[in-house]
């Protein structure tokens, strides 16, 4: 088991606009193992949602390769087989806009069953009731429409819809950032339960690092369309290497003194994320980096494995350890 379910290689997605080419995703590579939760973090404009949308097929990639369970699916969504589409689903950030307000919950939940020909017409209602039961909603919600539900309940419906086709990969695009913390905990626990039960693979996108710490098995951090650090969760939080990761971690407002102790010593946050139309030369982060050196604004660093499973894109932190790794590869 534990083979790679999803592999993304040198993925690029550029958008041509009147103001220039937006390099939303620029050379992103990662893999996700069956049954794991890969966390994707980054500020707005870092390209994390574009990665998700390109994988699910909402955008066709400009360049690069996406493989799912050994099958190449770099082509646009229209060329993917129905079985392939069935095995990957997405939950969007805002359940207020991702559910059709003019449909009842029953219609919303039975649509994926119809599209993929799961069950017959008579059996569908009981399948939908079963879906509702799994997300702990009562059966009389069948006849409600989305606006009659609270934000948390709507997101449960969106999750039920994603589970309807019995997928292997579920992309969660900030599933709880529009919700209150007391509801967030419940939804996350439920998602973790489904993962265990159905051996789901999650690509979990969020900007909330505290949340990431508790749900992800590995975390990748994106900045200006590139991955800057990728590491197993514990490594990522306890031994962050990239200065950007450290800046992000030290910017999180936390409550407990124990949490305060985990944060890297205060790195003062400076500057703002540059426009992806004019990506700075060299390392994209050099404009804000407190540890910037001479060559940072000229040479672009590559993503290198500095420890087993810990990848970093940085001149400064990559060099001392690369020698050993180079020998291994």
């Amino acid at each position: 088991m534990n083979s790679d379910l999803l592999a993304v290689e040198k993925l690029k997605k550029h958008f041509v606009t009147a103001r220039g080419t937006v390099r939303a995703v620029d050379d992103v590579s990662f893999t996700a193992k069956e049954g794991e939760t890969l966390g994707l973090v980054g500020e707005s404009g870092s390209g994390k949602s574009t990665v998700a949308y390109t994988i699910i097929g909402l955008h066709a990639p400009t360049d690069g390769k996406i493989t799912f369970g050994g099958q190449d699916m770099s082509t646009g969504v229209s060329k993917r087989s129905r079985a392939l589409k069935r095995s990957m689903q997405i939950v969007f950030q805002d359940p207020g806009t991702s559910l059709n307000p003019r449909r009842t919950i029953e219609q919303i939940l039975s649509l994926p069953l119809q599209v993929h020909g799961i069950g017959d017409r008579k059996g569908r209602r009981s399948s939908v009731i079963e879906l509702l039961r799994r997300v702990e909603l009562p059966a009389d919600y069948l006849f409600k429409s989305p606006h009659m539900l609270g934000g948390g309940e709507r997101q449960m419906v969106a999750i039920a819809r994603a589970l309807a086709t019995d997928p292997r990969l579920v992309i969660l695009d900030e599933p709880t950032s529009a919700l209150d913390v007391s509801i967030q905990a419940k939804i996350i626990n439920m998602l973790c339960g489904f993962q265990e039960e159905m051996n789901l693979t999650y690509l979990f996108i969020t900007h909330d690092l505290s949340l990431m710490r508790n749900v992800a098995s590995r975390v990748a951090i994106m900045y200006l369309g590139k991955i800057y650090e990728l590491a197993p969760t514990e490594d990522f939080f306890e031994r962050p290497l990239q200065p950007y990761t450290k800046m992000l971690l030290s910017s999180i407002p936390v409550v407990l003194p124990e949490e305060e102790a985990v944060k890297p010593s205060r790195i003062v946050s400076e500057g703002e994320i540059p426009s992806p139309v004019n990506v700075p030369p060299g390392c994209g982060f050099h404009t804000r980096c407190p540890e910037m050196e001479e060559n940072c604004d000229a040479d672009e660093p590559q993503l290198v494995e500095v420890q087993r499973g810990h990848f970093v894109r940085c001149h400064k932190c990559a060099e001392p350890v690369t020698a050993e790794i180079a020998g291994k590869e």
Partner: protein
Amino acid sequence: MVDHVLRIRDLQVEFKVYEGRLKVLNGVNMDVGLGARVGLVGEAGCGKTTTMRCVLGILQSPPGKITGGTIRFRDRDVLKMSQANLQKIRGGGISMIFQDPVAALNPVFTVGDQLTSVIRYAATKRMDKKEIKRRAIKALADVQLPDPDRMFTSYPVQLSGGMRQRVCIAMALATEPELMIADEPTTALDVTIQAQVLRLLNELVEERATSVIFITHSLGVVKEMADWVYVMYAGSIVEGAKKEILFERPMHPYTLGLMGALPKLTGGGMAEGIPGRIPDYLNPPTGCRFNPRCTQAMEVCAGNRPEFREVDPDHRVACVLYGGEADEQ
């Protein structure tokens, strides 16, 4: 002798809607000392913004109606003030920063136009154009915006989210108010930008000894921004204490639930959320409004509203668990 800038006592607000009357605020009690930094925490829909709208006299009426209580700004009753006097307060006495800097700035006027109009409006004596412009540019420099002269002639769309929020802060502080209300000023911003804006706000407030009410749903943010914290649930304040005391020894079951539901940066998996959801304001629960969701609820909780009383020095709680007879309603 006035040692309080703002004193809210038993504030009650109702909204008349088609279905009936929404009893939104149910006895809000709050004190803001001179030069104090007060945090107001609560989840979406608990009445934080409604309370502040009452303070500024900008509650939409109808449908809103203040049905009881008093709000004293220094030694004057805000609720009994004439519109003309209220406008004077809104100009110079109390200012507000809103959550969404996109909606708070007019897109068709330059930053300079909007800033000068605020200064002109709040001026106690006649000022010539040059003086107003000089003050506006100084206000922009004070919030550490790069190149304030250019900012003065920029339109909001030309600025990033963090810069727009800085402009809003400049507008709020340009009139040298005694009390500044910041309503979730960093919720729409990325975490590194949030850290910058919080740092700036703290510096400015300290320098000017302005009293602040900082509204947020994030306990982590409140910990960085306030000396005194009030926790609000379903239209009333359930706990209020000095920051150190509140985070060390939270008492009200809702505060405890809220703290427990936060994902921790130290990991350890997700905690349980608070069961149930925020009550329906048409038919709110009797007695303590938290009782249907409370794990320690007793019979008496549904009977009378618990009094908001001092249980320890600098620590006030509205819960029967901590002694005191329930208040006759």
